[in-house]
């Protein structure tokens, strides 16, 4: 039995409900469970979704890079569908992260945007994977373009470690909340850590569900095109 067949019952029946339930729990924890942060006030609650959007985006791009590497090595369509689906879902979360960041920054920093190293690297990441999507936007997949896109995904993901270390490496103004102690801008209340973890689980499940939906779409589209091609050959 293939991995796809084993996953299908769980992904079709359990995952949507699990993701929805976890997202309700995440909203409850963010709006009703955690206390207001002392200096930033209510706007700090954007943090729980903003950070997890970025983690979901990183997860998407790492999955895409891994699947692209496998596609380049073994040339199997399944790996390409997974890579493409992961980039699309990753780009959704990357875009949400890029938009929610300035909404938090405006009342806290007094500006919507600054070319801080981490922010700049994040825009570069978004641009790299936007190019990937442009390359893959044709209706029929060209094998050469698919290979170029796979190489781009493998190379593009190298930007993520740079984003992670950019705060320490270039001393930008972007806060480093997760790794910092509470006295230096970290999470000051244990309930904030709980809310962050609940939201992380919700985003992981949402990511998995969206990835599955998109993967299935690409798999069915490919099957359809194969049948159309076979019919065309028979007609000739």
């Amino acid at each position, binding site marked *: 039995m293939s991995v796809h067949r084993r996953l299908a019952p769980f992904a079709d029946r359990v995952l949507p409900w699990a993701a929805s339930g976890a997202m309700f729990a995440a909203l409850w924890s963010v709006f009703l469970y955690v206390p207001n942060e002392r200096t930033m006030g209510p706007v700090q609650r*954007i943090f729980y979704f903003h950070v997890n959007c970025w983690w979901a985006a990183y997860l998407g791009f790492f999955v895409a890079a891994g699947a692209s590497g496998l596609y380049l090595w073994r040339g199997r369509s399944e790996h390409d569908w997974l890579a493409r689906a992961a980039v699309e879902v990753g780009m959704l979360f990357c875009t949400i992260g890029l938009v929610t960041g300035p909404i938090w920054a405006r009342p806290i920093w007094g500006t919507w945007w600054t070319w801080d190293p981490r922010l700049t690297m994040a825009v570069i990441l978004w641009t790299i994977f936007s190019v990937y999507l442009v390359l893959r936007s044709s209706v029929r997949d060209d094998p050469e373009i698919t290979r170029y896109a796979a190489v781009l995904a493998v190379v593009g993901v190298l930007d993520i470690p740079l984003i992670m270390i950019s705060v320490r490496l270039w001393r930008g103004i972007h806060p480093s909340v997760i790794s910092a102690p509470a006295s230096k801008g970290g999470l000051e209340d244990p309930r904030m850590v709980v809310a962050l973890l609940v939201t992380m689980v919700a985003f992981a499940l949402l990511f998995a569900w969206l990835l599955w939906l998109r993967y299935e779409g690409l798999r069915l589209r490919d099957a359809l095109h194969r049948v159309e091609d076979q019919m065309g050959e028979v007609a000739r």
Partner: protein
Amino acid sequence: MSAPGFWFLFAGYGVVWSLLALFLMHLGRRHRILERELRELEARLPRQPVP
């Protein structure tokens, strides 16, 4: 909650749900295209005689 902070919070979560909804609508549109292509393919298939 203070009013300005509340509005930024509202805008932030509004963006999150709007973009998620747009993505789901995009997936739905692709699914409908796939269904239409499938119906077209079915129409092109030669009909089998009913036994």
